[in-house]
């Protein structure tokens, strides 16, 4: 059962009287439990695809069915509701609210919930933060957290409403190698527990941690291949730490 079905998607922009074809005819189907990376050079239409998948933008033509909902006829407010319930965003720049604790940041999507069913928002936020390994940093503000920790808060925020999938836009673009490997480990763990993750990336070595790679060029899908030798981020992290210790010893 696919949770995402795109058929005949087109997205055109009018820019100073010139029509820009960001996506020109795209079909894609993603099943629950997949871990998929979207690759392609700048201007290939990746970002536009992400915006459409995340219901931040509407395609000019084509049909997008998300978790059984046909989004073509949704209003702006219904789009907001779909984003709230079905999509978990993780951005390159973390996009956390400044001067706001981790718990409050994670609670934010619950704040805009329209499901009247009562839940303890704070307990839920704390549970998800513990799941991403930040149980010790619940009341720290973004400025008191490292980049990797901030991104983990963002991932917790993405997961807090149990969305249909997590949409990560270059989630490790602002992180160093160790933090990158930590985030990839986290993603792999989440995926192993059944979470669907869609990740945009430039780097082939990161795509190697996912299960399927699609590549875009000039607004079209040019390849869609499963990953054969899938790497294990946890192993790589361990290896990298060992090497780092050795390098440091040599340096000393």
């Amino acid at each position, binding site marked *: 059962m696919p949770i995402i079905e795109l058929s005949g998607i087109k997205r055109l922009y009018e820019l100073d009287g010139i029509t820009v074809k960001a996506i020109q005819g795209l079909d894609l189907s993603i099943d629950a439990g997949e871990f998929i990376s979207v690759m392609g050079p700048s201007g290939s239409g990746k970002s536009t695809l992400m915006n459409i998948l995340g219901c931040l933008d509407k395609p000019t033509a084509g049909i997008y069915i998300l978790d059984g909902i046909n989004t073509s006829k949704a209003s702006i407010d219904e789009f907001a509701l779909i*984003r709230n319930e079905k999509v978990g965003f993780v951005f390159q720049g973390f996009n*956390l*609210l400044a001067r706001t604790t981790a718990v409050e940041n994670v609670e934010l999507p619950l704040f805009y919930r329209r499901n009247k069913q009562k839940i303890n928002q704070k307990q839920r936020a704390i549970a998800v933060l513990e799941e991403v390994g930040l149980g010790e940093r619940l009341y720290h503000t973004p400025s008191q957290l490292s980049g990797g920790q901030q991104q983990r808060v963002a991932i917790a925020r993405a997961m807090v409403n149990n969305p249909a999938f997590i949409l990560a836009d270059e989630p490790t673009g602002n992180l160093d190698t160790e933090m990158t490997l930590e985030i990839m480990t986290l993603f792999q763990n989440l995926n192993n527990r059944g979470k669907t993750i869609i990740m945009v990336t430039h780097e082939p070595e990161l795509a190697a941690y996912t299960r399927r790679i699609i590549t875009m060029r000039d607004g079209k899908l040019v390849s869609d291949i499963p990953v054969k030798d899938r790497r294990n981020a946890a192993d790589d992290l361990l290896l990298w730490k060992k090497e780092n210790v050795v390098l440091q010893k040599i340096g000393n």
Partner: protein
Amino acid sequence: MGLLRLLKSSFKNIYKNRMRSLLTSLGIIIGVGSVIVMVAIGDGSRIQIEQQIASMGTNLITVLPRRGVGVPHRLTKSDSEKLKNEATYIMAVSGIRQRIFNIVGGDGNWSALVMGVEPDYLIIRSWNMQEGNFFEEEDLLHRRRVAVLGATVASQLFGARDPIGERIRIGTNHFRVTGVLERRGIGAAGNDQDDVVMVPLDTALTRMSPIRAPLLSSIALSVIHEDFMSRAQQEIDIILRESHNTAPNAPASFEILNMADVIARAAKTSRLLTNLLSAIAGVSLLVGGIGIMNIMLVSVTERTREIGIRMAVGARKKDILFQFLSESIILSLIGGIIGVVFAVFVCKFLTAFMAMPTYINPVVIMISVLFAAMVGIFFGFYPAKKAAGLYPIDALRYE
């Protein structure tokens, strides 16, 4: 999203930027505060004037000799006698002869207004005795040297002692004190009404140098009812013209003043001034509102990314609209409430240390706080609308 959660999150945001919030509200604080203070000063002085009119009697008429060159007649006791005998709308009449004298007696000396009056003067001014007796017609007839002291003079000369029966010297004449007047307080002109000594009119006219002459400073009259004020004035005019042999259309040698009118005119001037000041204060409230709009616009720009994040995680346009609107309403409401507290303190200060009467009407407080909230809605709407109209993709990408 519940109202309570919305308010809670608005308070949080305001608290996160508390310094800026305070500065933003400052315009409203000053605006609301000054409106309330201005209206309180106006109301206070109006109430004071009303009380003065009431205490003086609304049916008081004063006749003064017209000042100027070439006026052949002055007011004399025969004028006041004629009024007493002929006027029908008049209840009581008293000629007055007055001057400031140095008074010696008791503990030392004191300078005060000495008024030669007739026994009816107390009725005209609806004034009572604190102790002792006022003089009578017989005292006038015999030109007796008896005096009644105002409360201020009594306490200045005799302290806490009972002045009745004591001797005082007014100018060169010795008087015996027969009574003390009830305290009246500050008069309409801001003078101390109790800083006075009253003596029989005829004593003043014949014995007291340098006012020893058959001339009156003024005549005080009391009309039978305030409804007959204008008729009484016409009657006085006719009687005095006859007495002075002045033709009905010739310029009169006297002036008739309706005291309630005089005070009301003064009150009108002060009310005009108060209204003007209140209007200026109202403008500052408006400027405060523009200040809020200004800061909210800056805040929307500054928080564009935050708005994008909120939209990405599911906030609708109206969620964002209400968030910004509630922030600006809370800012101006807090400003309004602080303004009220500030105004109450200022009024207390003015009354306690500047002897300025103030009266804070609860309705004025309610109206100005409500107005502050309206300012918040009005000036907060545009920035909130702007925030809600942001496109999530652009807002997220905003640097």
